[in-house]
């Protein structure tokens, strides 16, 4: 219940924050919805916390030409209640409402969530499906990676020491685009046993899957045959080494992914 001691800094600017994060043993604190409980259980014991809560200019959702730019410190509730997203990328709204609970959505941030790279988190599926890009900053400058390259492995993202997620960029939905996020909740934690995000736009379908494997992934084989929900479902978990725990076996997770993908594709047809 009680974390170990740490040094704390609450920088006001991004530059300052990046400077602090460049040091050894520093860990960024965004909403803290994953980090703080782990610190209380002493599974995490960072020497220095850099609280991003006061950094200005990291919390926004704005339209920029063909894209929507989302500041990394935007909370899940910011996304859930964004009229802009509801109109231009409703998949993110649909996903946000299914994250955790009200209090978690009020505090947790999209940047913190993806940086944590939890294989059962909700955002990865949705961001994969809508083809997001992640802007990453460090003292050395900024870079942008495609979301598919961002998730490397279980709890492992492409973020290098000293780097910070600063923005998520998603394309504005084309006219007539359709999308859905379907989630099977682990009954205790509320994490996704399986989460399937489907995004159909301009005749192309992108599918993001979370909860199933060591990291969230794009189900490209399913995308290729998305016009036929049965076929797409049959290959959604092909060649995937699925997770297994006390809540669901690998076999059941794969099955759920197939069923829910089929249903999602059918409902969007």
């Amino acid at each position, binding site marked *: *219940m*009680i*974390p*170990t*001691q*740490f*040094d*704390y800094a*609450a920088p006001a600017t991004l530059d300052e924050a990046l400077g602090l994060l460049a040091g050894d043993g520093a860990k960024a*604190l965004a909403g*803290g*919805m994953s980090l*703080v*409980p782990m*610190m*209380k*259980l002493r599974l995490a014991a960072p020497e220095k*916390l850099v*609280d991003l*809560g006061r950094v200005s200019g990291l919390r926004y959702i704005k339209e920029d030409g063909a894209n929507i730019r989302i500041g990394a410190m935007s909370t899940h*509730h910011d996304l859930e209640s964004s009229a802009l997203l509801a109109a231009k990328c409703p998949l993110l709204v649909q996903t946000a409402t299914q994250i*955790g*609970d*009200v*209090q*978690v959505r*009020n*505090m947790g941030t999209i940047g913190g969530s993806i940086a944590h790279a939890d294989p059962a988190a909700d955002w990865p599926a949705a961001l994969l499906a809508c083809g997001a890009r992640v802007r990453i900053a460090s003292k050395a400058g900024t870079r942008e990676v495609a979301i598919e390259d961002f998730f490397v492995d279980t709890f492992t993202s492409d973020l290098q020491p000293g780097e910070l997620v600063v923005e998520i960029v998603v394309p504005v939905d084309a006219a007539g685009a359709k999308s859905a996020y379907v989630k099977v909740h682990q009954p*205790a*934690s*509320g994490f996704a046993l399986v989460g399937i995000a489907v995004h159909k736009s301009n005749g192309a379908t992108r599918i993001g899957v979370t909860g199933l494997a060591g990291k969230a992934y794009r189900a490209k084989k399913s995308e290729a045959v998305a016009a036929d929900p049965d076929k797409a479902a049959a290959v959604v978990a092909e060649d995937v080494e699925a997770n297994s725990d006390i809540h669901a076996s690998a076999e059941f997770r794969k099955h759920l992914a197939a069923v829910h993908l089929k249903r999602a594709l059918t409902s969007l047809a």
Partner: protein
Amino acid sequence: MKITLTVNGKSRTDDVEPRLLLIHYLRETAGLTGPHIGCETSLCGACTVMLDGQAVKSCAMFAAQANGRDVVTIEGLAPAGQLHAVQEAFWNEHGLQCGFCTPGMIMAVKQLLDRNPNPSEDEIRHGIEGNLCRCTGYQHIVNAAKSAATALAK
């Protein structure tokens, strides 16, 4: 480190360890034992307070994060000697038994009604998903939320 924040309408400044959790700050330093601690994984919601008008789990953040912000606990929901409509509704509808989850639950219902003044049963249940109650089976809490919504609409 020094922090200054507003708690239930009053500003206070305290010297705290960076690792001091907001819930411990409220309970031990500020003497507000209304919010409770029921878990360490931020699932039970017994510690729920309002931070700048938004319901948060005060066991899942550090007091330092609340520096300069506005915190309202169950003790500050209504002026002394009065009850907020949500509190009154919990009382009228028997929305509590052992009472341990209640301060957090009331905050969650307040948050829900702030955002959605006329929620359906389903919306109420989702609104209190982050608050566990082991006594009531939630039914009287749902009734309390409905009755508070009616009272607040008047």
